[in-house]
């Protein structure tokens, strides 16, 4: 931890001067002695101390001798029991002027005190270092060597426990090894806010315990393993897999969300065996999500593609092909497809910046089209306009530090705990101080409560109204100190994005777009959008096309491109001759069946994939590509921060997408200008500093009138009352702790606005039950293919439940945990019911959990579904 401010300059008045081991030093007021000692190069041994956790002073390992001037200025050593010097815990003691600290370096008393504590810590610590995962990188082991005695004097009986026990499916606890520093329990309570582990029992039998009725379902539990100063906490994924000294460590970047978290990847003999958090104070500090930590087994899945496949002309089956053959076949097919209407490019959001750039250039240069879109999820033109006008090419915008300094953060279409874990941790940290978090969401999530946030309860599709109301909300009083974070889900709510822009303009609050996937922002910057070229250059701006065309040495297509939905529709209709598809899970797309049909209908399909999927099965040529550990690259985080990383597995021969595209392009007689990541990085337009015109912001899209069926309508209460209830709900935050969220009073069963479909004649789904609005998003630990192989991590995920309001639960005549059935346009699912403070006419389900794929099995978020008690 740095004790100087960011500018490297510290105000003179804020400095405290003290002497440590004879060296005079000045540090900022409030600095702990243990950190001041680091400034003069003295490492005081410690266990419970952690710079990002509140001091506790429990382990007593960091004892030092301290003298302070008394009122007359005479130096007085801090004394304990009569006549004895009392060494002080340097991890809890704040520096003061004139203080004289003597550490183990210069004080025999401090040294003996430290040796004594070390000996005590070891008496009950098992001597299983040779089989302990921590052995070789263990603070206890290391500090026992530097600050302990060579041999123990303890000849009595050690305390023993059965080892290990599960504190979650993913995290194991070996109580014998625990030195009870409480780092893990403090992390859970102070940082993650999931205090389901706590110290229990007392004396030498004190131990970390769980509350068995409340399983540890924390998305951040793996951090406890990393900060454990001994081998007490281990993961099922890594336990007994390797010795630290056999590992090769490479800094890298998390590929599971758009936060760009610094990670460290440890591999041995060509195999990634674990991932740890990096230390990046500007981004993720020292914490990462469990997904970034444990989600890496997918790259070694059985169905990983290893060689190119082409469709045999005679059998119609896939057969292995050489790279040159596959390049040639792909080029031939794409050329033909181009002649037969053109080729659409769907890239998905998992690509690196460099790979995305290759797709963007490949589409324009080799395929001569602007039909390219990275959005493999529900999207809109309004969104494309927003991205082009406010996001692409805007560089580093709102940062994590800005979030920490903000007075108010408004969340719209974004559930940070599930969708951007690092943002969640930063908001939670800041909310303990002065930050106020306000969420425009269907209900107050557990994450919102942990961020001490308040809720503007909003049914899906009505976000625009809530955003508009915020401009005039005196209580939230959004101003230039505020930040509006809009999630990618907001694209599905008509008018919401333009309302967010208007709100930012009116209040001066800053606006930032937070996508879910690591490659989304990079793809946008690279030009994987039908309206945008690299660097935010508008396709329909001739100057921009000329600017880029000059560099690329070609003429760029000027016809406006199709977006992903239109590409899919055009392929299905035969208007497009072919598709190039990168890593896309059909079930993520707005219409999975339609997407599959388009892939099947397209005349020629080239698939670049890690693993066999529905798309590869239907493709005419399949190219295996490198996973992130097998290539260099960059992700662009939601902040707009470029997060480069180097190749981890140097022995891997897997090729990045850009190499494959370069190969096909060459067969098409075009050069992309690069074949390697380094060459792509050197491309002058990669970081495209386009300073010309940008697309104008999305025109104010009139938000849909609040549909009458969504309103509390009732013969007993007039519509005006229903409206006023609604506006109250939307206009003002509801304290998340105490939000019963009931619009209707008990007993007025007919006033909830729920329509029983029994009388509805034109019921498309043909189901029975109450008609409700569907709210949904993906939970962090979900069914996504990047978590394949991480079974223990999946087991810590939250179960798939249908959340309903308490009133709706009553109306359905079911109890919490009973099955309820939802019927939507795409199908019917049965899940257990649970309660949240939703509106009575809104239900929530996870979009990709428990086998449920929302778009495939039920229908898109925001649509109307029917709900009924019991199984279908």
């Amino acid at each position, binding site marked *: 931890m740095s004790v100087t401010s960011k500018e490297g300059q510290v105000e003179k008045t804020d400095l405290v001067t003290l002497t440590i081991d004879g060296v005079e030093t000045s540090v900022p007021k409030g600095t702990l002695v243990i950190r001041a000692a680091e400034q003069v190069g003295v490492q005081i041994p410690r266990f419970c101390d952690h710079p990002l956790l509140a001091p506790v002073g429990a382990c*007593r390992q960091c004892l030092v001798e301290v003298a302070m001037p008394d009122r007359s200025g005479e130096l007085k050593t801090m004394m304990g029991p009569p006549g004895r010097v009392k060494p002080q815990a340097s991890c809890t003691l704040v520096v003061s002027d004139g203080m004289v600290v003597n550490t183990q370096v210069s004080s025999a008393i401090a040294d003996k005190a430290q040796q004594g504590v070390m000996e005590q810590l070891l008496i009950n610590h098992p001597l299983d270092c040779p089989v302990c995962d921590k052995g070789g990188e263990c603070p206890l082991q290391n500090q026992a060597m530097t600050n302990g005695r060579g041999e123990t004097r*303890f000849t009595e009986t050690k305390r023993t426990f059965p080892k290990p026990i599960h504190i979650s499916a993913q995290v194991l606890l070996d109580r014998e090894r625990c030195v009870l520093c409480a780092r893990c329990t403090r992390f859970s309570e102070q940082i993650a806010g999931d205090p389901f582990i706590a110290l229990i029992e007392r*004396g030498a039998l004190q131990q970390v315990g769980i509350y068995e009725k409340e399983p540890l379902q924390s998305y951040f539990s793996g951090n406890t393993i990393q900060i454990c100063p001994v081998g007490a906490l281990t993961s099922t994924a890594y336990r007994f897999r390797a010795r630290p000294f056999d590992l090769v460590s490479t800094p890298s970047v998390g590929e599971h969300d758009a936060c760009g978290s610094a990670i460290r990847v440890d591999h041995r003999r060509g195999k990634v065996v674990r991932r740890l958090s990096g230390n990046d104070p500007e981004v993720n500090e020292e914490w990462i999500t469990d997904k970034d930590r444990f989600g890496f087994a997918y790259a070694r899945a059985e169905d990983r593609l290893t060689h190119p496949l082409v469709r045999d002309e005679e059998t119609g089956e896939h057969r292995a092909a050489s790279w040159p053959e596959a390049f040639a076949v792909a080029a031939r097919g794409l050329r033909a497809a181009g002649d037969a209407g053109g080729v659409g490019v769907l890239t998905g959001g998992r690509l690196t910046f460099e790979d995305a750039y290759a797709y963007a250039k490949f589409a324009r240069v080799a395929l001569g089209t602007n039909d390219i879109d990275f959005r493999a999820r529900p999207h809109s033109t309004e969104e494309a306009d927003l991205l082009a006008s406010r996001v692409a090419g805007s560089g580093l915008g709102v940062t994590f530090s800005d979030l920490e300094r903000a007075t108010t953060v408004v969340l719209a279409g974004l559930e940070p705990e599930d969708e951007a874990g690092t943002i969640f941790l930063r908001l939670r940290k800041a909310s303990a101080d002065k930050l106020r978090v306000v969420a425009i969401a269907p209900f107050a999530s557990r994450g919102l409560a942990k961020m001490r946030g308040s809720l503007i309860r909003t049914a899906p599709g009505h976000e625009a109204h809530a955003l508009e109301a915020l401009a005039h909300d005196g209580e939230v009083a959004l101003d230039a100190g505020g930040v509006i974070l809009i999630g990618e889900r907001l694209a599905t709510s008509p008018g919401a994005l333009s309302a967010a822009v208007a709100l930012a303009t009116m209040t001066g609050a800053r606006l930032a777009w937070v996508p879910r996937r690591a490659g989304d922002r990079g793809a946008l910057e690279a030009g994987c959008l039908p309206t945008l070229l690299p660097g935010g250059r508008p396709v329909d701006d001739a100057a921009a096309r000329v600017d880029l065309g000059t560099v690329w040495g070609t003429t760029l297509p000027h016809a406006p491109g199709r977006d992903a939905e239109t590409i899919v529709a055009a392929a299905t209709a035969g208007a497009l001759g072919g598709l190039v598809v990168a890593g896309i899970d059909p079930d993520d797309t707005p219409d999975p069946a339609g997407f599959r049909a388009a892939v099947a209908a397209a005349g020629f399909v080239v698939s670049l994939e890690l693993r066999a999927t529905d798309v590869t099965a239907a493709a005419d040529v399949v190219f295996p590509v490198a996973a992130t550990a097998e290539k260099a690259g960059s992700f662009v985080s939601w902040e707009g921060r470029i997060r480069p990383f180097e190749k981890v597995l140097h022995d891997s021969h897997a090729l990045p997408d850009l190499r494959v595209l370069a190969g096909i392009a060459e067969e098409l007689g075009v050069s992309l200008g690069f074949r390697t990541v380094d060459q792509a990085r050197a491309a002058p337009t990669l970081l495209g500093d386009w300073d010309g015109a940008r697309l104008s912001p999305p025109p104010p899209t009139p938000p849909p009138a609040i549909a009458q069926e969504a309103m509390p309508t009732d013969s007993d209460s007039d519509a005006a009352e229903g409206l006023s209830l609604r506006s109250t709900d939307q206009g003002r935050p509801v304290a998340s702790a105490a939000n019963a969220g009931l619009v209707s009073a008990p007993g007025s069963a007919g006033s909830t606005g729920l329509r029983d479909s029994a009388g509805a004649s034109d019921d498309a789904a043909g189901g029975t039950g109450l008609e409700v609005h569907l709210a949904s998003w993906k939970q962090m630990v979900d069914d996504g293919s990047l978590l394949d192989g991480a079974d223990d991590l999946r087991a810590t995920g939250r179960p798939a439940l249908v959340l309903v309001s308490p009133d709706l639960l009553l109306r359905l005549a079911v109890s919490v945990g009973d099955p309820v059935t939802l019927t939507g346009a795409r199908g019917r699912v049965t899940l257990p019911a649970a309660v949240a403070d939703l509106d009575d006419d809104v239900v929530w389900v996870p979009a990709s959990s428990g086998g449920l794929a929302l778009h495939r099995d039920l229908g898109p978020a925001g649509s109307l579904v029917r709900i009924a008690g019991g199984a279908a």
Partner: protein
Amino acid sequence: MVDVLTPVLSDNWDQERSWTMESYEASGGYSGLRSALGMAPDDVIAMVKDSGLRGRGGAGFPTGMKWGFIPQDNPNPKYLVVNADESEPGTCKDVPLMMASPHTLVEGVIISSFAIRAEHAFIYVRGEVLHVVRRLQRAVAEAYLAGHLGTDIHGSGYSLEVTVHAGAGAYICGEETALLDSLEGRRGQPRLRPPFPAVAGLYSSPTVINNVESIASVPCIVRNGAEWFSSMGTEKSKGMTLYSLSGHVARPGQFEAPLGITLRELLDLAGGVREGHQLKFWTPGGSSTPILTDQHLDVPLDYEGVGAAGSMLGTKALQIFDETTCVVRSVLRWTEFYKHESCGKCTPCREGTWWLVQTLARLEKGQGTEADLETLLDQCDNILGRSFCALADGATSPITSSIEYFRDEYVAHFEHGGCPFDPMAATLFAPAGATT
């Protein structure tokens, strides 16, 4: 001999049903409250300061000064918390006081709360003494009925609620910050200081925590004046206090006398060491104060006198052990107590007591050498003053002091190959005059 005793707190203990409001008021109870309510709160604090009353829970911190630390400009409510978690081996003064005259404490609570401007006071009682809890609850209920508690007490405009809270059986909860955590519903473990309870104590609000006897001494000071109180005792240790004699003594019990009385005088009052035996060692203030021997019979039992003798006045729990007692065995028993009661938060206490017990148990069986004594002393050196709170300091006191005075007896265990004492002889049901 009778002149030596100064029954004040214990004055009414021999009254008929002394624990009732009726009996207490008949002997002048609650008159101090009426006087105090007519004073300015700061004057009450000044009076307690002037009296020289020092904390009776062991540390001897001046009570009035502690009250003066409460920042009255702090907008949070102020709290008074009475530490009635009397759990130390040997210490037995608060429980008898609360049994015999709970209203003395209740009156003290009201006056003290008034002085520090607390509107809610808590009495944290050791959970095992259910009979005391019941008696206190009854007394508090009586005080409410009599208008001594509640809203606008006796028309003074001052209001006070009192809550009697039963602990759950942990010695550590007698440590004031652990007590606060426990009172707030958490596990009782000591808190980091600063912030000190006077600034951020119960529910992060300014809090005074006092021992039962300290608070119970307040009404008599208000009634009789600071000068009256400070006329008793010694130069720096003013007033009278309860000395609790237990163990090998003819008439064990509470002896209320001015600070500075000696054990020789107290033993005279208590009929001496049990018949046919001689004093071997004793604790001046519970098991966590270093033991003393028959050389110390004339040490004045005040804060300074006992300190000068190398021990601490503590809770004035004088446990008397005669020559039939094996000091190693006694020390082992005490150490087992500290191991059992260590909260586990800090390393020296948690691990140190675990180790000390095992070493002592081995030495008691005669399995050891003089080198073990050095290791034992070194362990104590690595615990004393290194732990988070004073519990572990107390755990080392009997060990280091017993080795200082009775090293030969430890060695005798090694030479004898076991304990040379007959444990039966030390029991109180042993025949008089038994020697081995």
